[in-house]
């Protein structure tokens, strides 16, 4: 009997549905105006703030604002190589290298458990003149076996591959320095990737018998640090700490030749590069001949190296960085301060 559907019941039953339409309509129109209003105001705000924050942008990151660790002058021993000596075949050049496990501040506030030669990554610059007898006394102060593998021409038993130096042990590498050019050295113990990524490498310069033209000489070793061990670099640097030369620009003189010995030891990434702003340079691959390319950008795979010679045409502040934007923004960026 209650199942009879009366007209009144039907009306009461449909009332909610009927009422929903005007309400939904109301919701729709209100939503549309709210959205339009929001878009307008947010665009205006963006325009305003992008101008306001232009000075904080990446490209302009310089001086005290740069998040770089260390103090001015900290990297001088790595940046400025020991002077070239005139050729005197048979002269003995001695170096002492010690493998040291240490914590390095590789970016502001971030430390890395590094394996180093003499406490820095990259290690010290080794320099000899072609024909010198190079004697490198290596002591392993770390907890893993290490070696030193030099690029260049030398006997097989001086190659740092088979003569693995255990913790606490020593080994003396002795060979004639040749051929002239920009070379490098690094640990060749296995696993190779780990030993390089941890920081065991450095620049190795052999000067030609005929001295190169006088210049302000600089060394730049390009590297990266995988601080969280995921097989990808978290930071990229030149000579050690991220953004160091953005915070402390390298002072050079206009009218005086600038010569950069450059080598790439970045692990994990296929290539690295060097790009100079506002000028061109002569690039001598491996520095072992007179052949050069006139350019402002060079690309280097791991182990590739060369010599860059710049005659700055203008004074002022010129950026140099990897022309992989990612590396640039993860620390591989700096400035030359060119003065008269």
């Amino acid at each position: 009997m209650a199942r009879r559907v009366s007209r009144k019941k039907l009306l009461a039953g449909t009332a909610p549905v009927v009422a929903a339409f005007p309400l939904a309509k109301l919701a729709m129109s209100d939503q549309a105006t709210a959205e339009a209003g929001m878009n307008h105001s947010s665009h205006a705000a963006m325009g305003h703030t992008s101008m306001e924050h232009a000075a904080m942008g990446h490209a302009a990151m310089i001086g005290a604002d740069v998040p770089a660790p260390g103090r001015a002058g900290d990297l001088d021993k790595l940046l400025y190589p020991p002077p070239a000596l005139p050729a005197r075949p048979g002269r003995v050049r001695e170096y002492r290298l010690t493998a040291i496990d240490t914590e390095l501040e590789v970016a502001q506030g971030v430390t890395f458990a590094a394996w180093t030669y003499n406490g820095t990554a990259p290690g010290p610059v080794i320099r000899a003149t072609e024909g010198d007898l190079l004697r490198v006394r290596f002591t392993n102060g770390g907890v893993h076996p290490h070696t030193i593998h030099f690029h260049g021409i030398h006997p097989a038993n001086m190659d740092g591959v088979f003569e693995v130096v255990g913790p606490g042990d020593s080994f003396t590498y002795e060979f004639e320095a040749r051929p002239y050019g920009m070379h490098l050295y690094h640990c060749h113990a296995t696993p190779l990737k780990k030993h390089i990524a941890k920081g065991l490498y450095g620049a190795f310069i052999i000067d030609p018998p005929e001295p190169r033209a006088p210049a302000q000489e600089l060394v730049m070793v390009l590297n990266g640090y995988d601080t969280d061990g995921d097989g990808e670099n978290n930071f990229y640097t030149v000579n050690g700490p991220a953004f160091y030369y953005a915070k402390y620009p390298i002072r050079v003189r206009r009218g005086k030749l600038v010569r950069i010995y450059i080598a790439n030891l970045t692990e994990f990434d296929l290539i690295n590069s060097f790009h100079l702003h506002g000028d061109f340079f002569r690039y001598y691959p491996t520095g072992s001949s007179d052949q050069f390319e006139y350019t402002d950008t060079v690309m280097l795979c791991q182990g590739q190296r060369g010599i860059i010679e710049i005659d700055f045409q203008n004074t002022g502040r010129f950026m140099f960085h990897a022309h992989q934007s990612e590396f640039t923004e993860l620390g591989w960026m700096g400035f030359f301060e060119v003065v008269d």
Partner: protein
Amino acid sequence: MSDVEAREPAEREWWRQSRLLALLPIILLVAAVSVFAATGTSLTGLIGHTAPPADEFAIRRVTFKPGEIKIRVTNPQRTDLTIGSVTVDDAIVPYHVDGPTTLGRLRSATIVIPYDWVEEDPISVGVTSSTGIQTTEEIAAAVETPSASGRSFLGYALIGFLVGIVPVALGLLWLPSLRRADQNWLAAFMALTAGLLTFLALDALSEALSLQAALPESFQGVGLVLLGVAASYLGLTFLSRRLSVREGRERGLGALGLATLVAVGIGLHNLGEGLAIGSSFALGELTLGTFLIVGFMIHNLTEGLGIAAPLAEGAAVRTARLVVLALVAGAPAIGGAWIGGFLVNDVVGVLFFAIAVGAALQVVVEVGRFIMRRAPGGLGSGWVIGGFLAGIVVMFVTGLLVA
């Protein structure tokens, strides 16, 4: 009586002694802990090295304002954690921290980054600890985080009003029709209420569990869920007891009492629902279109029906009462939308959804008792079974509108 008085001093004496005895385990525990703490390090020496801490931050929230990104981070581990470096899209950025850069256990800080982010582009932020471990958070699309203003306050209120109060009130308009329905139909509608509340409980439970999964482990999200469920279930049990006492009943709730309880249960659910909508919108995870709002309205229409069903049986109810019931069930959606939109807090979110679960389950139990007492044929009748299943189906189908 004199016997009792005589026994009292002896009993008191016993109490005093037993209280002291009760303290004994605690005293001994303190002693044992002290001894262990004094020599504790030798234990790891016996077993071997302990693993180093993960040194990963918990990124709790990322918010966007024009020219600025803020990252809320928490240290989820036992040992201190220091913010070393901050990246946006794999680029080191200058930043400052509101609060200390070294965070103790479960301490939080906000990292403020001046940054011209691109509207609606995906973006990733990374926080690297001083030990070099990077924690990254991907944001699917960067949109400005709504800030608290009179305008947005009203906006969230309108959302809550539309998805909460309106459908419940409309659903209550079914009351006159229900009053004319026979006992079997009424039982079916009551069972439908139970069905839809069961659906809501499960829905809220899955929401609570997935939210807690994103919390740092040390927050013990599952325990938090249980706490919320138990507190609301038992709280409502207590409330229903009080209501039935007020109605002067020996056992079980009357029509109005049950309707009130259903309204409270639905209200707590709508609080969670409002929170979910508000926070999803605030975090840019939800495109708040007309369709979604209308979907929620239709979805929630049945909630009003659920409140109306128990009332259909009882004496006439004043309109003011109905308005109150609609507000109890619907208005929490407004509060939820405000909380979600302005104070987005994942812990609060977990708790709210857990509370909704307990409330809905308790109301299902009450409705079940009501049906058992009143319905012809009890819980086993075809009307009741059909109604319960229909409730689930209705929620499922209308849920498609908002999924």
